[in-house]
């Protein structure tokens, strides 16, 4: 038998305890059996070890090898510059590890958030006496007492409840207090006779028997879920691993082949080492990981400005591929602010804003326990809405009346009444569910005065109720009774006069319809999963344009549906009403099984499994619980649905931008590699030194690539269908464009510049040049300069893939212009300042040498413009 279904005596028997509680001896034994009542934290690898693990990534291993070779070559040839190179490479490894660490870093605070919810002390009955003990010493079988304001220390079954109400919001997100009972319960609904650790008593008191402590509690399980479960790497992380592998194979393959060629044609070991280092350093895009991390970080800052807080940088990009958003209704689609929209007085309905002072509104103010304090209305949401709506028309009238008596609202009676006095007049005002109030009425107040309530009246009122309900309104009916002389309380709520109905609703947020439209254009499906009634949910879905006639499935219906039935329902327009968090998990799982990329919103602790299971878990920043926030990938600071859509837009833009800067970064690998190949194959003096490669990768190219990562979303970004699951970031066209097209032009520029300088300095093929020869220094400098100049053009052209740069506007990305300016300043410093000349082995270039390079930049721009034109034509002819 389940604990919630047991009778009081059976609860004691099941938990092997008594009303007198456990004895101290038994409690000690159980403490050693079950352990302390604490949320334990998984011992995870320390931050230092996490960071250190990135020092052994594939890229890092490659660079360790290159650095090791440099050290060896330096030691063999007693060459300080080689040793310095080795240190530079080791520094690069640390820089890369640092950036990767930050990209994957995620503050794990879930268990801390939970710990804060656990009380320090708890009141228990042990050996027949009530004592206070540290909450961590509570054991299963302990009888606990919780009073108004107490935090519950462990999961327990109530055996005595006196007007006992709990704030379950940390667990379920429900803002209204939940009444707790002590009777056994069966059935599938969430039992009202259980209390959970971390929740707070708001009213009354209860005695309960603990059945789960520590990690076995609901909170413990959630903590376990958030900290233990490892998630699959995000598409971006997978792509980066893929890129790393491809590059490793290329580098190691080329390294071996050319090392062997070098050996066979008699190149010295020293030179061959240099070559191997060069090939590795040229192939590894040292700037890629820092650029990815910095761009993601910039994107997450942009998203934060739009109220979407990203928990882990790597989560930015998967957002762009979301094709289903499962969202709550209250607070996300709607404002989470009940408003009195209409009043109905027999037999006319009008908007509250156009209402005139009337007795119905007076009833709404007097039969109401909410109160206005300054700008705020304090009280239960429905009452607060009624008070605010009615006061806006009536003004301050409460002070004119004195409340004499109150018959409180109960869920059984579904109504409340107050007796109010003004001078000698004594009036009862009642409010409640329309059917309850109507059943108590014998008369009706109309424009012509009070008369008997007829069946025709009831029919008209019924029709109006159906109309309001169909529009998702919450309805409260009002009635009155003039009291002559004294009264008997039990007879008070009889023979009432029907005054009318107030229709309330939580209006949709203004931004939502536009966001919904954007989603539709972007091929993203929206599914509302709400705990609310079907009609309310449907009305909102209609109003904001999510679905006209959605199939409505309630939580209970969902429980009875087979997997295939649910899959079929999810193909069309569907809405889930009266749904529990467990339903949300099932919906998310089914959608994922159908191949969808799912973003889901949640606020309660109970939502944590669904948030964790979804591709993108979205928690509410304002109303959500800390635990939900910790389980999510993204937090909505304003709880607004439109913010999710903005985040998707940014995510999509990010994917495009990563492709942009990958194209940009990969292009320079070719001109960096070619000098080494020519060095081995044709014995041409090395045109580019290893340190010069590093200054391109981690110096001149960094600012423009980050700027490309900050490119604004293209206008059509939300008119395209979502990216397919598994679509590669690094596709063949991307690789071909950077390696075989842009890269080749850049290599041609670099080698032409090199040959131009050498030739004009009197060099001829076969002549050897010393490392310190001014001609040689100048020649390597022009190779470096050629790569930088062509990369400037490349940075501009990489902004678009098919669109003409002229149409996109050359000067529209200010970050890129700043990036290019930084790039120019850097290269000028490297070429013209003596200190940097010494470090990088450069020499000053003349104006004619710079001018020699410019046509190559223009060639690159025009050639790519031509390619874009061809691509556009092909696309047009295909469509």
């Amino acid at each position, binding site marked *: 038998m389940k604990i*919630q279904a047991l009778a009081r005596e059976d609860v004691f028997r099941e938990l*092997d305890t008594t009303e007198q509680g456990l004895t101290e001896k038994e409690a000690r034994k159980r403490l050693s059996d079950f352990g302390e009542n604490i949320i334990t934290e998984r011992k995870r690898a320390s931050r230092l070890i996490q960071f250190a693990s990135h020092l052994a990534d594939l890229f890092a291993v490659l660079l360790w090898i290159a650095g090791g070779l440099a050290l060896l070559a330096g030691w063999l040839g007693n060459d300080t510059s080689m040793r310095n190179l080795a240190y530079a490479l080791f520094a690069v490894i640390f820089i890369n590890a640092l950036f990767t660490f930050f990209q994957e870093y995620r503050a794990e605070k879930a268990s801390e958030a939970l710990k804060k919810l656990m009380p320090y002390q708890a009141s228990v009955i042990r050996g027949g006496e009530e004592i206070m003990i540290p909450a961590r010493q509570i054991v*299963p079988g302990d009888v606990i007492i919780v009073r108004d304001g107490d935090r519950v220390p462990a999961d327990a079954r109530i055996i005595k409840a006196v007007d006992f109400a709990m704030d379950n919001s940390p667990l379920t997100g429900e803002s209204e207090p939940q009444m707790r009972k002590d009777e056994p319960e069966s059935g599938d609904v969430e039992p009202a006779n259980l209390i959970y650790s971390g929740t707070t008593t708001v009213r009354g008191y209860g005695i309960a028997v603990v*059945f789960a402590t520590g990690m*076995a509690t609901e909170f413990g399980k959630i903590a376990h*879920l958030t900290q*233990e479960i490892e998630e699959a790497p995000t598409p971006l992380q997978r792509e980066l691993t893929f890129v790393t592998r491809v590059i490793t194979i290329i580098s190691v393959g080329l390294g071996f082949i050319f090392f062997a060629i070098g050996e066979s044609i008699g190149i010295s070991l020293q030179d061959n080492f240099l070559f191997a280092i060069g090939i590795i350093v040229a192939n590894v895009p040292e700037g890629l990981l820092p650029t990815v991390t910095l761009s993601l970080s910039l994107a997450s800052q942009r998203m934060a400005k739009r109220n979407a807080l990203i928990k882990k940088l790597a989560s930015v990009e998967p957002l762009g591929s979301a094709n289903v958003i499962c969202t709550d209704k209250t607070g996300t689609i709607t404002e989470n602010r009940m408003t009195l929209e209409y009043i109905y007085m027999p037999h006319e309905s009008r908007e509250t804003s156009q209402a005139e002072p009337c007795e119905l509104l007076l009833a709404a103010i007097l039969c109401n326990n909410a109160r206005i304090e300054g700008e705020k209305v304090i009280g239960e949401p429905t009452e607060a809405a009624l008070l605010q709506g009615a006061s806006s028309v009536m003004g301050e009238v409460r002070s004119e009346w004195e409340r004499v008596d109150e018959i409180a609202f109960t869920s059984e009676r579904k109504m409340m009444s107050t007796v109010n006095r003004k001078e000698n007049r004594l009036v009862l005002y009642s409010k409640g569910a329309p059917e309850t109030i109507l059943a108590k009425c014998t008369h009706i107040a109309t424009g012509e005065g009070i008369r008997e309530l007829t069946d025709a009246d009831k029919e008209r009122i019924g029709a109006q109720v159906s109309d309001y309900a169909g529009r998702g309104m919450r309805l409260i009916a009002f009635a009155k009774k003039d009291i002559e002389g004294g009264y008997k309380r039990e007879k008070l709520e009889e023979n009432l006069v029907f005054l009318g109905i107030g229709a309330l609703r939580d209006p949709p947020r203004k931004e939502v319809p536009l966001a919904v439209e954007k989603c539709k254009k972007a091929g993203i499906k929206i599914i509302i999963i709400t705990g609310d009634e079907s009609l309310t949910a449907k009305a909102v879905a209609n109003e904001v344009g999510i679905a006209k006639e959605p199939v409505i499935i309630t939580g209970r219906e969902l429980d009875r549906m087979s997997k295939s039935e649910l899959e079929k329902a999810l193909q069309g327009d569907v809405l889930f009403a009266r749904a529990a968090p467990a339903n949300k998990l099932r919906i998310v799982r089914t959608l994922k099984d159908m191949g969808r990329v799912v973003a889901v919103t949640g606020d309660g602790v109970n939502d944590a499994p669904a948030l964790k299971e979804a591709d993108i878990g979205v928690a509410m920043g304002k109303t959500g619980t800390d635990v939900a926030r910790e389980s999510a990938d993204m937090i909505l600071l304003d709880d607004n649905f439109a913010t999710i859509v903005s985040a998707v837009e940014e995510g999509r833009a990010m994917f495009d931008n990563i492709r942009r800067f990958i194209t940009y970064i990969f292009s320079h690998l070719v001109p960096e590699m070619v000098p080494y190949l020519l060095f081995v194959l044709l014995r041409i003096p090395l045109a580019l030194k290893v340190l010069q490669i590093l200054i391109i990768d981690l110096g001149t190219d960094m600012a423009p690539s980050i700027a490309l990562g900050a490119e604004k979303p293209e206008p059509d970004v939300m008119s395209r269908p979502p990216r397919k699951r598994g679509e590669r970031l690094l596709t063949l066209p991307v690789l071909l464009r950077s390696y075989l097209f842009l890269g080749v032009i850049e290599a041609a520029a670099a080698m032409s510049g090199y040959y131009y300088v050498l030739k004009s300095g009197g060099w001829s093929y076969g002549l050897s040049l010393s490392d310190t020869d001014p001609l040689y220094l100048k020649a390597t400098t022009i190779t470096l300069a050629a790569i930088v100049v062509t990369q400037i053009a490349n940075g501009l052209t990489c902004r678009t893939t098919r669109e003409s740069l002229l149409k996109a506007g050359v000067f529209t990305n200010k970050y890129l212009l700043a990036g290019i300016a930084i790039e120019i300043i850097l290269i000028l410093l490297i070429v013209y300042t003596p200190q940097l000349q010494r470090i990088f082995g450069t020499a000053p270039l003349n104006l004619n040498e710079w001018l020699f390079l410019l046509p190559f930049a223009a060639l690159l721009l025009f050639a790519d413009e031509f390619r874009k034109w061809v691509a556009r034509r092909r696309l047009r002819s295909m469509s």
Partner: protein
Amino acid sequence: MYRKIISAVDGSFHSELAARHAVAIASSLDSQFVVLAVDTGKVESENLSYAVEHLRQHAGTYGIRAKGIIRKGDVVKTILAVINEEQPDLLVLATRHGEHRLFVSSITQKLMLKAPCAMLAVKPSGIAKKGRSMLLPLALREHATSELLMLTSSLAKFYSYRVEILHVIEFPRWYDLPWIDIYTMRQKGEENMAPVADALKVLGVDVEVRVVVAESSINAIPKEAAIGRHSMALMGASRRGILKEVVYGNPIERMLSGILCDVLIWRQKL
């Protein structure tokens, strides 16, 4: 069919919780029930008598007349001797609290290797049951013997659990596969497990099949147990598997410690 079930207790609450599962099975299958306590001198004999008596009473509330045995001696030898005398079909015991290594070098492991009858080792998580479902991880359809199905249905019916058959298809770097391949793998997995689900349905159990493609079951099973918020996981083990674990160490222990619900490890008779 388990006609006779022995539950070994040591006076700890954990062993009582394990024995309660034995009562659940005995109640569903109408079996004879024997509570055995071995007095090794480490626990006061009064406590052992209380534990045995308490469980007999507990069994009595379900209409089971239980026999109580208290013997002095070495735990493993005494249990094996009683098994020899009583000839039970199933032995139920708890993995001792504080034993991080659930199998290796433990009493459970020794009995798993030596006890001739079927055996159920229980790692209890809490006292009361409030959940709605149990997990039945199955690597192969063939593992779902009629005995395991009977055991599953007896537990599911007693606790009114829905059963989720979890079939993990292990595939390295599955996330690089096209979705359609994953979908097809899952479909095939579901078809593969359908006869097991049907057999459980015939036994009157509400059952669902969940197929997951993952890098390893070691991570996937605890994840499913946590996300699905199951109250119990019933897992099969083979004697060969346990021997292998003794030699190579046991990754399953890591998995078991990651599952927060009650874990029942079942081994068929030798």
